[in-house]
């Protein structure tokens, strides 16, 4: 496990590179969810990166600009900037690994950004969309509901009623809101990937819609349902990724195919 800073001098990104346990020409870039869900996902991402590197993949997990240990104020992070950062991280991962092919695994907002990053400039071996944010407005609404409840529980209801510039403890100004609400994976340019896997705990219309859209764009796309234990399904999406062994095993099995290709 090798922590490092990379990228432009005035826009350094923090990442952790996990070298493969055996020589390999395949690399995996892990894309964290949005900052509201980052802390809950961090441990799972470390476990996933360790597991994939043991299987023989080069792995890089990294913080977008304005998140985690990367440069930038917290209010500087937008979906657009995250997509730029994914391109930077792919270049870094290529330099570190000399890999021929790169797959991307993104969770929630990270899945949406990974998919949008694959609409231009890069072709992924596999693109794994893990509980992806498919429609930005629905995601924002979901965060707003959680935020309202959190403020009620923490006795901040009076102070925060009608407030729109923070969500779940993080800045969420008009620019971030507009960028997030603009996300729609069921329209726009198709992704450049040999295969797309949509991984989720329950099948919904939006999952089928994104699968159908990608299929129509000529990309082989699979919708994979991973059932989790009752203990996990009872929790909200911010907490599930930290706990799910089933998803971790599924991801490792899915990406194993890229090692032999």
């Amino acid at each position, binding site marked *: 496990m090798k922590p490092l800073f990379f990228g432009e001098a005035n826009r350094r990104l923090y990442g952790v590179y996990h070298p493969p346990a055996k020589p390999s020409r395949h690399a995996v870039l892990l894309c964290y969810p949005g900052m509201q869900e980052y*802390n809950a996902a*961090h441990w799972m991402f470390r476990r996933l990166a360790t597991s994939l590197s043991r299987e023989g993949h080069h792995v890089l997990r990294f913080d977008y600009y304005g998140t985690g*240990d990367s*440069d930038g104020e*917290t209010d500087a992070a937008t979906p657009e900037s995250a997509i730029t950062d994914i391109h930077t991280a792919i270049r870094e991962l290529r330099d570190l690994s000399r890999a021929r092919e790169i797959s991307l695994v993104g969770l929630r907002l990270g899945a949406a950004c990974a998919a949008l990053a694959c609409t231009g400039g890069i072709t992924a071996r596999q693109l794994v969309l893990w509980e992806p944010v498919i429609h930005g407005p629905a995601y924002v609404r979901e965060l707003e509901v959680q935020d309202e*409840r959190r403020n*009620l529980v*923490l*006795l901040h209801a*009076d102070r925060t009623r009608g407030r729109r510039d923070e969500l779940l403890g993080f800045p969420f100004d008009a620019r971030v809101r507009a960028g997030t609400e603009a996300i729609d994976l069921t329209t726009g340019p198709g992704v450049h990937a040999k295969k797309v896997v949509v991984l989720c705990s329950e099948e919904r219309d939006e999952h089928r819609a994104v699968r159908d859209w990608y299929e129509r764009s000529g990309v082989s796309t699979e919708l994979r349902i991973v059932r989790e234990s009752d203990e996990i399904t009872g929790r909200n999406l911010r907490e599930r990724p930290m706990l799910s062994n089933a998803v971790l095993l599924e991801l490792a099995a899915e990406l194993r195919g890229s090692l032999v290709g």
Partner: protein
Amino acid sequence: MTYTEKVFSFGPSGALQGILVEPRGQRIANAPAILTWNVGLHHHIGPHRFFVTLTRALAALGFTSLRFDISGLGDSEVSQGDTRPDPERAVADVREAMQALTKQRQFQTFVPIGFCSSVDAAHAVGVSDPRVVGVIHLEGYGFRTKGFYLRYPLRFLDRNRWERLVRMRVLGDREAAAEASQDKERVYVRDYPSPKKLQSDIATMVARGAALLLVYVGGDTDYAYKEQFFEMIDDRTGSNRVELAFYPEADHTFFIEEDRRRVIHRVGFFLRKHFGATERKTASGAPHSNRFQPDTSPRVER
């Protein structure tokens, strides 16, 4: 930017990982290094990226900080064969951080910042290690006192509390009730030192000349007024070295950005007062002195 950040690996086999945050401009001569680490199971950036914002703000004041993961959390690994209990290992890791900063950056003195559960290790190191010249507790030890109970009925004047009660009990918002219940389990169940032990520990640190900043919040905590700490330990003799800050509207992890900003200002002011008295200029030429005045308006700090 007013800071530079570097990956900082230390400890046995370099298994402990952190980020060293150093001032880009002038540093305060002989200032202690500031240490922050995991709050609960959060990795070293802290809740809502608190420690990233804090350490960068402190770098702007001339302080060097290390924010790191204790072994087994975040990006740090547990050394093979290390079977020590977590609390013991956390204290050892803080000492490793101090040793590494002495070796690699010649720091001789330190100020650990404990936040919620990480207060335990900050306190233990503060009591036992003479290199610790200051200790900051954010939401550290709180015991109910007579003064707490006398003020308890004031809670029922808070409209937010009634609104929560109605939503959970009358309107049957089960998700809110479950979240409140989970918070209680996660946040408030910890082993505290006894008041007598705490009194003796504080006396030890004060006798050594260490300065302490103890920050508390209101909400659902066991803390109700600023001076409650002195009532808790039944001792005010060290009060010239022990500073208290109380933010009645804030919550345990400073969920609201405005609250985080105020605490960061307060921490900066405390550190400048005790360890950075010399007026120095930033790289941009602006003096530091007015940047971190304590926010003492009655609404936010009592």
